[in-house]
């Protein structure tokens, strides 16, 4: 400071702070003590099921202990007691905003154990890709809608949820349920696409494009939104490998890892799409990556709807797939096959597999151990948001309490998947 006589304000500062040499008002923190603060588990921004036990000093977070497990619904234990086909409803409820992607991931894992990968009919593969990408769009729409609402942008919530409603109506026509479809089966899918569905899907995609365009206009250049998201919650590129981050989180830091491109499964290698990659790894990058991924998914859908061939929708093997109802009611062999498949479950030869697909949040892995019976010995889900959430124990200290809300929102932790 200058060597002039102290002004009245400076003298007052010295009295209040008790220090003889106050360099800069902003640099001095008020003396505080550490206070524990529980965020959650019943908190609007915690997506219902996570408690973040913060230790705060003023507004700054010192440590963050993330306590999960409030939605532990024992997927693995239930899977050990259910037949291979009965597990599909449980997989729906893992990442419940993109249920088709979980169904597809699990079906692919079991099909690999059965050596059925190459025998899945092409139409079934295209249908799986189509419904999977629609589910991915609904996942990102929900994440952006909830994230925007938690920052106060209620209109964006309404626009994006409106878009999600249209997509759910289409999925309801296909599978019978808006949210928990259980549409995929081992060997294919359960029912064919209805008449005129493709045309309706194209129409809805046009409307969803308008909706995300509106959301983009409202948020991307919005000073309030940018101030809360820019530079907040930065995840280092070097942390991606050590913490096992995948999906939009990893891509926002600059690591271009997408299972659909690096290890193509189903018919993804026939489509032309880009993988959006961010640069800084902050909340705003994650928002942009998700927004762009919706557009890329719509691109895949356009191509898939044009290229989809006609054909059967499930494998023709009576040991794996239920026979046609016409035969079940008329021939004894089909009836016995039907009975055995329902009561006993299909028999998967003994073995282990780790099969991975691109879920809404990243690499969704299924590690399945079979002992040859109709029920799995172990059916583990490798949850992408479990690893994604763990990195927050490193990212949150140093942020303000109010920064927890957008950071947590953009991680897109889904309780059903994290806690299984």
């Amino acid at each position, binding site marked *: 400071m200058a060597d002039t006589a102290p002004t009245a304000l400076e003298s007052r500062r010295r009295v209040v702070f008790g220090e003889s040499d106050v360099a800069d008002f902003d640099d001095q923190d008020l003396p505080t003590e550490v206070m524990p603060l529980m965020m959650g588990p019943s908190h609007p921004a915690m997506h219902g099921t996570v408690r973040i036990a913060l230790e705060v000093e003023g507004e700054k977070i010192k440590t963050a202990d993330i306590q999960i497990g409030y939605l532990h619904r024992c997927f693995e234990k239930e899977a050990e007691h259910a037949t291979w086909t009965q597990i599909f409803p449980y997989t729906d409820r893992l990442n419940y905003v993109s249920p088709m992607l979980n169904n597809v991931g699990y079906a692919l894992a079991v099909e690999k154990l059965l050596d059925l990968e190459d025998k899945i009919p092409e139409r079934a593969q295209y249908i799986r890709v189509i419904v999977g990408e629609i589910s991915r769009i609904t996942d990102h729409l929900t994440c952006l809608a909830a994230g925007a609402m938690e920052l106060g942008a209620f209109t964006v919530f309404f626009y994006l949820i409106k878009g999600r409603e249209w997509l759910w109506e289409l999925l309801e026509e296909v599978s019978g349920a808006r*949210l*928990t479809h259980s549409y995929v089966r081992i060997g294919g899918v359960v029912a064919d696409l209805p008449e005129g569905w493709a045309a309706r899907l194209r129409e809805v995609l046009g409307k969803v494009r308008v909706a995300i365009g509106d959301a983009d206009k409202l948020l991307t250049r919005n000073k309030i939104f940018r101030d809360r998201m820019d530079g907040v919650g930065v995840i280092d590129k070097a942390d991606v490998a050590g913490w096992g981050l995948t999906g939009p989180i990893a891509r926002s830091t600059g690591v271009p890892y997408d299972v659909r491109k690096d290890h193509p499964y189903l018919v993804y290698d026939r489509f032309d799409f880009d993988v959006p990659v961010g640069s800084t790894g902050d909340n705003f990058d994650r928002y942009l990556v998700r927004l762009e991924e919706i557009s890329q998914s719509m691109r895949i859908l356009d191509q898939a709807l044009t290229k989809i061939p006609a054909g059967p929708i499930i494998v023709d093997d009576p040991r794996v797939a239920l026979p046609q109802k016409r035969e079940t009611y008329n021939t004894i062999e089909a009836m016995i096959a039907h009975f055995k498949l329902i009561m006993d479950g299909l028999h998967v030869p003994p073995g282990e597999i780790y099969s991975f697909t691109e879920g809404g949040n990243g690499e969704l892995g299924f590690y399945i151990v079979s002992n040859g019976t109709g029920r799995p010995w172990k059916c583990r889900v490798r949850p992408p948001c479990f690893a994604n959430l763990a990195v927050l124990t490193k990212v949150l200290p140093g942020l303000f309490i109010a920064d927890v809300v957008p950071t947590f929102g953009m991680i897109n932790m889904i309780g059903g998947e994290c806690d299984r």
Partner: protein
Amino acid sequence: MPVTFYSSKLADAVNWARKYSLFQYPFVTACCGMEFMALWAPKYDVARFGAEFPRFSPRQSDLLIVVGTITERQAPVLRRIYDQMCEPKWVIAFGVCASTGGFYQNYSVMPGADQVIPVDVYVPGCPPRPEQALDALVLLQERIQRGEGHSQVVLKQEKGFDVPLAAIRAKTGTGA
């Protein structure tokens, strides 16, 4: 005689006001939360029933909507939130997991929210369609109008009237 006539009309009026101004506390845990979000959305608008604004504080709300699976770990949290709400309060168990545990019969899931809190309306479904949820809301509103919600019944038994005593005193001018 005049007291009971006025107080029953007053009770009707107060219950009418209560049923059309429910402040919800959405205790959201799981997949049903997605359908619950759809309830707020423009298509299945819950605002037309007066129950629009969620109040994320139990002190300020009177309708606890238990949405999704309640695990054993979550039960003390749920109970505490219910206890913190002020009388009269109502509970809707949204979804089959909150009603009976759903198809999760295992070591971690509590078979229904009614194991630890009294529930007024159960909405089955996995997840329930938004129309079912709106039907449940209308059923609850009818229940409130009749004064039959769990906590209303308890209040009546304890105090004799479900309607605030001060209001009756002011209206009828008696010292009751």
